[in-house]
């Protein structure tokens, strides 16, 4: 985790540096079909994060040696724009984004009915336009909406959510200062209805007890985030119905 600092992240009333309670999410908004060319797309704003996701496929997997004769392969590419962070980020994949792309691909693979598309690949392009802590879970949350909006059959939606430790307290959904100066970060990807864990990373310092507190916050928030995902998808079909003159 980040370096120690003198900044007080939780005040005497138990409120966080941005005024949230320990169990409160940052404002979260998801839109579908924001891009015209892609087979499916989504845009998420989560706190100061602004992230676009585009889905292409299923299409024949290329290069050929990446094909799986039993199922489709999900190839997520997490990328941060040069202008997404304070100091310009050198364009192209670094080791961090290679790792994030890998764990997001694996998480989505568990949700998509990949067995229906042998030898195919499904590309998920995640572009972080503005980063504000928790980009991987925001990207994952938007990815599963983009896949659904592309009409790709899925067992479940994947919800991304994180909890962490700040000033010795377990809190939900770390903001930027909390991420930089906190003591632990635990991003997770959860299958919304079954509660199965498909992505988990952690760094910092947590006791077993603190881990249990953190996952309790995450599981509870998962339901709230899932509703926002569903609403984004339902909104899309409602709009289509109105367009066709029905309700």
């Amino acid at each position, binding site marked *: 985790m980040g370096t120690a600092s003198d900044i007080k992240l939780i005040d005497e009333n138990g409120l966080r540096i941005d005024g949230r309670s320990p169990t409160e999410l940052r404002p979260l908004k998801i839109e579908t079909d924001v891009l015209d060319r892609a087979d499916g797309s989504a845009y998420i704003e989560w706190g100061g994060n602004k992230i676009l996701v585009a889905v292409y496929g299923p299409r024949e997997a290329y290069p050929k040696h990446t094909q799986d004769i039993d199922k489709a392969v999900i190839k997520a590419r997490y990328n941060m724009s040069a202008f997404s962070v304070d100091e310009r980020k050198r364009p192209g994949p670094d080791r*961090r984004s290679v790792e994030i792309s890998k*764990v997001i691909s694996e998480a989505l693979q568990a949700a998509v009915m990949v067995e229906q598309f042998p030898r195919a690949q499904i590309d998920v392009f995640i572009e972080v336009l503005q980063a504000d802590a928790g980009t991987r879970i925001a990207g994952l949350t938007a990815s599963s909406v983009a896949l659904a909006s592309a009409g790709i059959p899925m067992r479940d939606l994947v919800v991304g959510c994180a909890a962490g430790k700040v000033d010795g307290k377990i809190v939900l959904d770390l903001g930027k200062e909390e991420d930089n100066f906190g003591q632990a970060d635990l991003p997770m990807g959860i299958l919304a209805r079954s509660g*199965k864990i498909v992505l*988990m*990373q952690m*760094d*910092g310092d947590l006791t077993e007890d603190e*881990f249990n507190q953190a996952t309790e916050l995450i599981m509870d928030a998962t339901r709230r985030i899932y509703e926002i995902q569903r609403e984004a998808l339902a909104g899309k079909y409602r709009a289509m119905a109105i367009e066709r003159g029905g309700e």
Partner: protein
Amino acid sequence: MPKDEAGVLSEIKRNYILRKLKEGQRGDGRTLTAFREISITTNYIPRSAGSAYVKLGRTKVVAGIKVESGEPFPDTPNQGVLTTNVELLPMAFPTFEAGPPNEGSIEIARVVDRGIRESKMIDLESLVIEPGKKVWIIFADIDVIDFDGNLIDACTLAVVSALRSAIVPGSKEGSKDFQLPVRSLPISVTMVKIGDEIVADPDLEEEQLSTARVTVTTTEDGHIRAMQKGDTGFFTLDEIRKAIKISSNTGKQIREKYFQ
């Protein structure tokens, strides 16, 4: 990664391992949470600042430390630098290829690095030569020379052992050589899920049969310092809780047995 590259496990082996697991045993006779035999040889490469040759069953890795002076990162001007790199050498496995690190070796290196960094094993603040200008840079490089599963734990053991034996060449910067200051002993424990069973320290055959992987790195105080779930399957929350317990118990045993 090695799982995909390794091809398919024969039907007869697969059935044997699955049948044994139902009886609470592993193909090689281990219990579900037991590690394979570990052997650690430190100062294996005397030309490096610190080194270790680690065997974890038939998996073999060599870690070497090099220490050089250089510029600190702008956001941590008063800290030394630690970088970890893993090379999956073509000699280690038929389908490992030479070339730049792939996503598999990057993931291994980053999980190993996080375990050591978050455990605060190295006192990076004591590695400043000239604040803001010059610090010691610790390069931890790991060669995987023989692959039979569970590279994350083999590599963590090797880097931790190598760092504990490392000497910083202070004489090159006008002071004295000194032992790299070490403050904790992180141990990573990697487990995979085969069917509904969680097994620790999987060998290659078990990795091929598994659907999901989780690594939990703990320190002496039993605190969790780093975790990573990998692969395309899932864990339930109860399974993760169980994995954390296994890691902290096994970590304790490994510390007692191999690091007295």
